[in-house]
Structures are given as structure tokens and as C-alpha cells.
């Protein structure tokens, strides 16, 4: 989970209330943030772009500036010191992108503290700017047909705010837009633009522009940008196979951006910017709408003087015209009696109204005994059912204030028999001095078959996306798991007597048309000693069979070919049932070649016993 650093000074300024750092951290925890701590960070600005990074005392400076791609031998080749700041570090809460920045966080905290409650009306002004969308963009064959814009006026942008906007954009890209797959975001200095803006396509090779963080180099084609610019390289896959790329162009021929890849240098935000245009383009309607709502309202909230205002933009599609951001509220009915039952806390109708107001919702109260109408702000992404608002009530009430209790209903408990049997078998082996081990169910063909001198089973459970060459399939038995553990412990004194109770997955005995494998609980053991003969294992297995209640008259030990075993020193154990004879276990001296494969220098005896199919319910 990425960590965000929120400036404590800025947060205090925006909270309009003078509370201690500790109290802020406590309140943040209570509304669901994971506070890592309050730390002093040093800030560095790239000597090769405007990129700013913050470094905690424990972290070291990277040698590469991620925006320009410049790499130096020493940190001072890349970075220049640019002051320090106290920040509260939080784990990003992906489901609440509306509190990714100091503005949104302050909005939530002001409500929680009761300083400012209810839904804020951003009263956006009527459009004076227009975005014309090319028909080729809205063509169904084009994958990112959606665009929404907003204008924020009278914003006093300083270094801090510039950085905050950049961070918000990065975090929204990551969490809400799924690394730009669903949508991407841009912000521009409105005063470098001329009305109207065109959302159109430009040629991949012929078009020229100067991407952000391009320094003193000449303008380049989109193609060059995609192969040479660090951001171009990172996101080229999103425009793969397209001869013409989407672009936002101003009437004065200034380039805004080539979404979803990169903005242009000439229209970027600076500390002289007063008015900002933001855009969200993409494929997922819900994400585009949420992103523009969050971006527009958070930017207004971020203005420390509280004088920034919102202005809508006219979006002219070939077939319709929209004004955005719509900031449409979503209305839900919330029954206070239901909330009380669901949460198990004693709250009145009026309490519910107040708690919802604290969470910055607008509540229309129809009188006691009747459900409330709750209008949810457009920037909230996580409200889709009444129960989501019930959770907001619980958070506003404070989880720490809820009195834990128990369900009063009596129920009789019962364990699964296979687990009881497993512990009986384990008790028999611990009584015989064996040490219990655990290992992974995932293994590899190399470890499970090749090293064991066995042929690879045609039907086995394999992974489509393994993460390591040691874990590509599910094990069929416990043999390789046990040998692997012995191989890790060759310096441990002998004799070594170990066992594992574990689940294995097998198609043995399954009809060819059955897709589901059997999941079987097994107990398996190993004896590694200077002398580890068949007889020693046989007596252990006999004891295990006896303790597990299997009548010796029903048991038959048969010599069967076993490629993992020394010839003539291997038995398969069969249990005679009323109608059939089933293999239930094995005991054998491990073949010396197998021992060599595992780099074991002492003889090993292996045994195992099937305890039964894994049960899922009574």
C-alpha cells in the first residue's frame, strides 16, 4: 500500500481549528486511516525536472529522477535540497480517494470534529469554456471515449500546493484509475489556453510537442516520446497499435496533453498559475465521474484562503452536450431503526441525523419513525447501499465507543472428524519421539517428480501464473516436502525423526471427465539416521495403523515398484474393505540417487498414511 505524507502545517491551516499533532493522528485513526507516524521529511527538487520528492530520515535519496529518467552517480547529481516539513504519514485507503490529500482530509475531519457539518455545496459557476470532442474519439472502436473537465478559479498556487496537486494526481492514477487503465488525469494553467479546447487525434509520427519534464530538448513526435520519455515508456502499452493518438489542444495551438500518457510543457501549472483547468479522460464512466468530482472539489478545498471557486465546462460531444463536473448527489434512504439494530448501539433518530451530517452527508429528515433521505456527495466512491451509510454512522459514533457484547442465541458446536483424526495420528508420532513440521502445498515438477525419480503425473493441479519456479503445482504426496526439510537440516544431529500432517491434491482414482481433484489429508514421516532401515519404518507404520483403529487383519503390505525407493525395500499398504482393496500408505528406504538429488548424506526412510478425504462440512 503506498504511503502518503500530508503536511501537518497545511492540514492545521485547513482544519480551521487549533488541535495538537497527537490529536490529529488519533482522529485520523478513528475515521479509518492507518497512521504510520508523524515525521520530519526533507524535500529535494530534481535538477533535471521540477519533480519533488520527500525523504524521511530513514530513507535514502534515489539516484534516478523518475520523471526525466536522469540517473546520477551521487544523489547530489540528481537532487537539490528544497527545505523540510513535518508530515503525517498515512497508508493510502484505496476506497476513499476523496481523502488522499490535505484538502479532502480536512473536509472529512472538520465534519468528524463537528466544526463544519453537512454536505458542502460547491455552487459551480456556469460554463465559459468549451471542449469540442472529435467524432473519431467517440467512435466505438476507440477505447477511451470519455472526457470530463472542470475549472478552478482564483487558486493561489505556491510550491506546497503545486506539489499537493501533483501527488493527488499520482495517487488517483494509482488507486482510482488503476494505473491509468480506467482513466487518466491532467491539470493545466488556464491562462496559457484559448477557448475552445479540442479533444482530437494527432499523428503518431508527424505531430510535434514538448512533453513535461523534457528540459531544454527540442519538441518531439508522440512516437519518440513513447520510446524515450520515462512516462512514455511506462504507459506506451495503453496506446499500443494506434496510429493516431488522443490529444487535448488549445485554440491557440498550445498542447495540453496526450492522454493518458503525458502533459505538455507549455501549459503546465506553475507557481504563477491562478486558474486551473482539469480533465479526466478514460473508458470507465463511473471512474471518470468520480475522478473529476474528487479532483475539482479537493482543489477547491486545498486553497488555504478558501477563496477558490469552481466553474463548469461545456463538453461538446458530436451527439450531445454535457456540462461537467455534474457533482450529482446520490440519494439513499436510511432507516435509523435499521442502523440501530445492525450496529447494536443505542442511538436515536436525531443521533443518526447528526452522525450522518458529521460524515458530510446532507440529511432530509421526514420525522421520527420515518426513514431519512440521505444525499451523498459526488466525491464519495464507496456508497452503494444503505449499509454503507450505516457504517458511516458507526465511524462517526466511534468504534472505540461501541460496547462489545455476545449473541444471546445458544448453538452446539462440532468439529470436523478429519481434524480430530489428524491430531490422533500426530499424537501417536509425537509419542514415538517425532518432531512435527509444516511445509508448503505448492511444489514444482522438478522437486516433486524429477528429484524423486518419478514420472510426472499427466493429471495434476498446475498454476497458470506461478510466481517462482519452485511453486508451479500442488503436491500429490508428502515425500518431497519431508526430504526438502531434511535437506535444510543436514547440520542437525542424527537421528532426525520428523513428520507432517498435510493436505495433498490428486486425481488418482478420479474419472477422466471429473474436473475436480480429490483433496486428501495425509500423515507422512521420515527417519534420517546413519542406519535407517525398512524394519524401523514398518514398526512405526504398524503402530500408527494400530492407534488409528485399523485392524491388522485388514492390512496387507505388498512389494510394489517404487522408483523413489531402494529396490526390495519398499511396501505399499493396502486396506481390505468389504468390496475393494485400497492403497492407504507406503513405507520405503529412499533410493540413494534420490538422496543425492536432495544432497542428503545419510540414509532416509519415508512412510505415509492416508487419513481420509478432506471434509468440508458435517
Amino acid at each position, binding site marked *: 500500500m503506498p504511503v502518503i505524507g500530508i503536511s501537518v502545517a497545511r492540514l492545521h491551516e485547513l482544519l480551521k481549528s487549533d488541535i495538537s499533532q497527537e490529536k490529529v493522528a488519533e482522529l485520523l485513526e478513528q475515521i479509518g486511516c492507518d497512521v504510520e507516524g508523524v515525521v520530519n521529511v526533507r524535500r529535494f527538487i530534481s535538477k533535471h525536472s521540477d519533480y519533488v520528492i520527500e525523504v524521511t530520515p530513514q530513507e535514502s535519496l534515489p539516484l534516478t529522477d523518475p520523471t526525466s529518467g536522469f540517473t546520477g552517480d551521487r544523489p547530489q547529481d540528481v537532487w537539490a535540497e528544497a527545505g523540510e516539513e513535518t508530515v503525517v504519514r498515512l497508508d493510502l485507503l484505496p476506497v476513499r480517494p476523496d481523502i488522499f490529500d490535505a484538502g479532502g482530509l480536512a473536509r472529512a475531519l472538520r465534519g468528524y470534529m463537528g466544526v463544519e457539518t453537512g454536505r458542502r455545496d460547491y455552487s459551480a459557476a456556469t460554463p465559459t469554456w468549451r471542449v469540442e470532442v472529435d467524432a473519431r474519439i467517440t467512435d466505438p472502436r476507440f477505447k477511451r471515449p470519455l472526457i470530463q473537465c472542470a475549472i478552478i478559479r482564483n487558486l493561489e498556487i505556491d510550491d506546497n500546493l503545486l506539489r499537493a496537486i501533483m501527488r493527488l494526481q499520482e495517487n488517483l492514477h494509482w488507486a482510482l484509475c488503476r494505473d491509468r487503465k480506467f482513466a487518466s488525469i491532467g491539470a493545466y494553467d488556464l491562462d496559457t489556453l484559448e477557448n475552445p479546447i479540442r479533444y482530437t487525434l494527432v499523428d503518431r509520427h508527424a505531430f510535434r510537442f514538448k512533453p513535461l519534464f523534457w528540459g531544454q530538448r527540442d519538441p518531439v513526435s508522440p512516437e519518440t516520446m513513447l520510446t524515450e520519455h520515462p512516462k512514455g515508456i511506462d504507459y506506451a502499452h495503453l496506446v499500443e497499435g494506434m496510429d493516431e493518438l488522443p490529444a487535448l489542444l488549445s485554440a491557440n495551438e498550445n498542447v495540453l496533453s496526450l492522454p493518458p500518457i503525458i502533459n505538455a510543457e507549455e501549459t503546465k501549472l506553475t507557481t504563477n498559475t491562478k486558474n486551473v483547468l482539469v480533465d479526466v479522460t478514460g473508458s470507465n464512466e463511473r471512474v471518470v465521474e468520480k475522478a473529476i468530482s474528487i479532483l475539482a472539489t479537493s482543489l477547491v478545498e486545498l486553497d488555504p484562503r478558501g477563496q477558490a471557486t469552481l466553474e463548469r465546462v461545456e463538453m461538446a460531444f458530436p451527439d450531445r452536450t454535457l456540462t461537467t463536473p455534474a457533482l450529482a448527489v446520490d440519494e439513499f434512504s436510511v432507516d435509523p431503526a435499521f442502523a440501530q*439494530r445492525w450496529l447494536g448501539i443505542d442511538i436515536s433518530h436525531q443521533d443518526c441525523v447528526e452522525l450522518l451530517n458529521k460524515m458530510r452527508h446532507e440529511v432530509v429528515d421526514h420525522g421520527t419513525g420515518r426513514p431519512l433521505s440521505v444525499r451523498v456527495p459526488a466525491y464519495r466512491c464507496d456508497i452503494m447501499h444503505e449499509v454503507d451509510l450505516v*457504517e458511516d454512522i458507526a465511524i462517526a459514533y466511534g468504534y472505540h465507543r461501541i460496547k*462489545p*457484547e455476545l449473541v444471546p442465541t445458544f448453538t452446539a458446536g462440532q468439529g*470436523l472428524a478429519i481434524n480430530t483424526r489428524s491430531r490422533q495420528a500426530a499424537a501417536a508420532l509425537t509419542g514415538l519421539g517425532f*518432531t*512435527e513440521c509444516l511445509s508448503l502445498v505448492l511444489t514444482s515438477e522438478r522437486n516433486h517428480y524429477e528429484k524423486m525419480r518419478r514420472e510426472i503425473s499427466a493429471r495434476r493441479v498446475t498454476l497458470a501464473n506461478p510466481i517462482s519456479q519452485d511453486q508451479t503445482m500442488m503436491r500429490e504426496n508428502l515425500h518431497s516436502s519431508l526430504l526438502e526439510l531434511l535437506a535444510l537440516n543436514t547440520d542437525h544431529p542424527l537421528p532426525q525423526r*520428523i513428520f507432517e500432517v498435510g493436505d495433498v491434491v490428486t486425481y488418482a482414482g478420479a474419472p477422466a471427465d471429473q474436473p475436480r481433484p480429490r483433496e486428501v489429508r495425509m500423515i507422512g514421516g521420515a527417519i534420517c539416521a546413519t542406519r535407517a532401515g525398512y524394519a524401523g519404518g514398518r514398526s512405526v507404520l504398524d503402530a500408527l495403523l494400530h492407534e488409528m483403529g485399523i485392524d491388522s487383519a485388514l492390512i496387507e503390505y505388498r512389494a510394489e515398484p517404487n522408483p523413489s525407493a531402494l529396490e526390495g525395500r519398499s511396501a505399499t499398504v493396502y486396506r481390505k474393505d468389504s468390496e475393494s482393496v485400497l492403497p492407504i500408505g507406503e513405507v520405503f528406504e529412499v533410493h540413494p540417487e534420490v538422496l543425492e538429488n536432495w544432497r542428503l548424506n545419510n540414509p532416509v526412510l519415508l512412510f505415509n498414511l492416508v487419513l481420509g478425504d478432506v471434509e468440508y462440512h458435517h
Partner: protein
Amino acid sequence: MIEKLPPHQYRLIKALGTGGDKTTVEQLVALSGVDQALISAAAVELASAGYTEIEEQPYTELRLGELGAAIGRGEAELPERLLARALLVRQGSATVKDLMDDKKLVDAGIQPGKFAKKLVELNWATFDQGTLTLINGAENQEPSACDIEAALTAVHVSGGVMNIDSKSDPRILSGVKRLKGRKELLVARDRSRKYVSLTYEGKLLAAQVAGGTITELIEASELTPEMLSDGSWRKMQFRQYDVSLSAEKAVPGKSHPLVRVIEQTRLAFLELGFTEASCPMAEMAFWDFDALFQPQDHPAREMQDTFYCKTPSSYPLPDQEIVERVRQTHEDGWETGSRGWRYKWSPERAAQVVLRTHMTASSIEAIARNPHAPQKIFSIGRVFRRETVDYKHLPEFMQVDGIIIDEKASFASLLGTLETFYHRMGIPEVAFKPDFFPYTEPSVGVQIKWGGQWFEMAGAGVFRPEVTEPFGCKVPVLAWGGGLERLAMAIYNVNSIKDLYQSDLDWLKDARLSGIIP
């Protein structure tokens, strides 16, 4: 008044009485017939009672080296002497460079440069600007025997081994000192010798022993079956042991520490009236995700985080009516009052086989089997996440998941159940904070305090109606899930999760059944 002495003490006193003053331990062994360890122990016991005194005297044991022995036998010469002879051949003086060609020296492996200084030290020669000149060499006189030779001769005469101390012949002592580091000639080891003598009280005791007024105590070291069968134990005195001494280490066969935590967890839930359930490890995505209202584009479902099976790649979807309700709930909320996720739900994606990512799959399958209240169900099992192996992560770990289906269930009773469970696991402090999971509302993160530190232990919440209603369950369902490794790691003080699955046998044998008591 002493009448009897334990056997070793009795024999020691007796031996000292005949051995005279200052008897060495070696002599006492010979005189008493008791072995050295036991006679030494008896001497220490008697010394602490004031009857004996033990004095330790250092000495040096000399042994001839290979060359030293050959010189003693007259089969070889001291290198210094060979060098002096080589000088005599050259009228008493020669440069080191000249001497390097001397055949006798070459044969004996003597480097003239190395030994020139030793000749000067012996006062046999002078050494100036590379030229070695024998004192009295002009008179063709070989140097007389030096202290080194005297020492070697003395050791040879005493049979190749000889003990010396500070009072020995000064000439031998200086020879030995000069031979330090020349192991081929002589090896000197510092040793000490113990002398035992009687104090005044000891002498009185020895007289009583000699006179027969004090006799030997007949003592048995252990009780034998014979003593029991013939009753002779009645006449026996048993040697008393020093019970403060440590004994050989014994280690019982043990269950794995994580298994103990699993068993404790099972017991806790069984005691609280829960029924146990489980589900397959190779599970259908429908149960792992879709039935839990986890949208198909959720990041947790990506190939990056979840293991998908190549074979088998899909299972047949369950009952069509159930599937249809789940589809609609995802798309538009169905009859649950939800807005839904608003996307096109794919049955193919739901039929994919994944390795279960949480035991919540078992909980929802239990609801699908029987949606009626009241029920309490828990499931413990191995779950899989696509993680690379490091000290905090493994691709597999154990999870416990539980649900309560009950008319009277509420968020408050969820917190109470979790608090009670952790109390039963021996953890007194539990805290709750808001969290987010796609299938519960409200959602809560559960933290426990162990050894002064807070650990994130479990996630919990009340199942969303979008999860339960498609299965016909209309009452609140409390749900929670948590990893068990972290609990085991806290209780057994393990730093790396790898230690639990790729264990060191020493650690497994050492991990106490009781766990660490904080």
C-alpha cells in the same frame, strides 16, 4: 565424633597416612586404587572440611622433537654447530652468500642467513656487513657445548621426557628458553601438579583411621533389582548426589508451534458453540470472489495477486438460479437495495479455478448450503496469495474464518465475539478500528497487543446484503478472518514466517509447548 568416612575419603586419608607429607595426586591414585577424578573430588571434600590442604605447583614438561631426539642419539647435529663447522672450513670467516653454497648446510636444509643471528646470540661468532666470523675461529677451535645442547642432552638422558621447574639447573632453563618455538628440537608444555597434605586435624583423623576407630562407610551408588529381591537395601547406605548439578538434555516429540495455535483456535471456537467447516484449496472463483460481491475487476482478482490454475482451468458453475442472482447483484444490485457495481458480469471469469485466497470462501459456501439462522461456523485452512518469499510473506499461510448467522446479531456482537476469541487465545488487549473490505459493512480491523506492541490480526464486518441475500439469507451475518501465523510468530517469538514452514529442527525442538510468556 566421626565413625565412618565415605569410601573415597576413607581411602584418601589412609593413603595420605602412608604417603607422608605432600603426596601428589598420581601417587595417591597408586596408593589408594581409586581413580583420579574420584580421589581429586575426595581431596576437595576433605579440604573444605579442613582435613587436607591442596597445593598446586606449576612445572614444565619437556619432550624431545624429532631432530632433538636424533641429536640425543648422536645421529644429527645442532644446526648452529653445523654452521660453525662450515665457518671453520673457511678459516673461521665467510659471507652468508658464500655459506649458501656449502653442501653440508644445503643437505641439512640450513639457511645460513637465518642462523647467523643465533650464532651471535650464543656468543660463538660476530656478524658484520654480511660476514660471519667465528670467535676463536682463527685458532681452528670449535665452540664448546652450549646451553641448548645441555638441555637436549638432559632430556635425552631422562628418556626423552623430563619435567623442570624454576628450581632446575639454570643452564638447562636458559637452553629451554632459547629453544622456544623450535618444536623440531624440543616441545615444552606448562602443567601443574597437585600435592595433597594433611592438616593438623587431618593427621588426627589419619591416626584414627590407622587405629581402626574410624571405618569405611559402605555406600551404594544406585538401587538395583537384586537389592530389592534379597532385601540387602536395608543394610545399604546410598551415596547422596549433588542435586544442583545439571543433567543430559532431553527433548520430547512435539507438535509444530503453528499447529498448536491452530488447535487452540479450534478449541476456542468449539467451546463458543461453533461448528467446523472447510472448502477446497483449488476453488472456483465464484466462491472465492463473486459470491462475496467482489467485482470481477477488483485488484485482488488480478493475476498479479491471485494464483489461477492452468489445470483444471474451470469448474461447472453451481445452481443456475443462484448464479443468476449473483450476476444481477453485481450488475445492478438485484433485489438487495444496492446500486450494484454496474458492469457486465462474466460467467466465464466466475468459473475459473483459483487457489482459495481466504477461508471466507468456506463461510459463503456454508451459507449457500444452509442460509438459516441461527448458526455459528468457523473454518481453518491454508490460503494462497501470489507473494514472493521473504521474511514477512509466503505464497501460503493459515487463516481462520468465522461467521454468525443470527436474527439478533449486530456489529456490537461481532466485536464481542472477536474480543472473547482473542481473550481465549491468551491475549488480554484487543482494539478495533475502521477498515475496508468489499464484502462487509461496517468493516473493522482487529488489533491485538502482545509484548507491548500492537499487531493487525484480523479483518471483520457484517456481510453486505449483496453477499447474503442472493443465497436466501435475510438476517445479519457477522464475519471475520485472520491469519494464524502472525499470532504464532508473536507467541513463539519468531521473526520470519519462513521459519514456520522451512524450519530449523533445533528451533522446532526448542519451541516450548507453553509458548513465550510475555
